[in-house]
């Protein structure tokens, strides 16, 4: 009877976590130790908890800034079009 190579319980609530666990347990891809992470990798990486948190915050920040810039630019663009049509 073949034994499942999956040893630990895989959380089923996230596909991404499932892929990560399968990668780790079936293909043996190991995470680098925190000492090996230098430079900006020390603060932004997908291995340590802080690194992942910083990446999430950075992504949200970029999305918020992009949305704010788009919304600020859009009313100005509408104003310019209406003034051009009246003249």
């Amino acid at each position, binding site marked *: 009877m073949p034994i499942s190579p999956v040893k630990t319980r895989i959380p089923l609530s996230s596909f991404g976590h499932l892929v990560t666990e399968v990668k780790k347990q079936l293909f043996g891809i190991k995470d680098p130790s925190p000492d090996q992470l230098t430079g900006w990798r020390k603060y932004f990486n*997908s291995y340590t908890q802080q690194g*992942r948190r910083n990446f999430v915050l950075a992504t949200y920040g970029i999305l918020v800034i992009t949305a704010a810039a788009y919304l600020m630019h859009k009313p100005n663009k509408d104003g310019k079009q209406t003034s051009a049509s009246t003249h």
Partner: protein
Amino acid sequence: MTVSLFDQFESPLFLGIPLMAIALVLPWALLPKPCSRWISGRYLTLQNWFISRFTHQIFQPISHPGYKWALLFTSLMLFLITVNMLGLLPYTYTPTTQLSVNMGFAVPLWLATVIIGMRNQPSLSLAHLLPEGTPTPLIPVLIIIETISLFIRPLALGVRLTANLTAGHLLLQLISLAAFVLLPIMTATAFLTWSLLVLLTLLEIAVAMIQAYVFVLLLSLYLQENV
């Protein structure tokens, strides 16, 4: 007079009074209360055994701070399983076929798990949105995907229960209508249809119990991530 197949899902009114309240309170009226006797009766013992097994099963992977949710999850499970099973009786109303009822359970409980996670361990809750070992080019995409999957959870919870029960009840009504109509015309086919109806009823009994369990199990998984 044509009868709409969806009439069974309409919220019943009696003299303008919504009977939904009675349907929602019915499990409380039917389930036994703990008694002060030394040895309780069969019904209460069975209920206690079920509650004990269920609580042990659900809370085994959850850490100690999550144990305070035991009462909520167990009562939710008892409520859902009772309501679902009562709805299988002919001419009864099933509150869990209403999306509003199921979303009323799903959204606050899911939101509570998210708020607890953000409040007690904000760093870990945010880190959950990026799976470990993700390649760098995929990180922004995966964060957005995980965020979308996080917000779609309550919708999936509510709609799953609603759709399963509604589809089951609709199928039961359709096949019973077919068996009834075919009885004077083609008796053998009506018998086959009736056999299918019996099997479908057994399936719906299983679905009623399983969907209640899945609802609470998924909530416990969301709690496990955040507590």
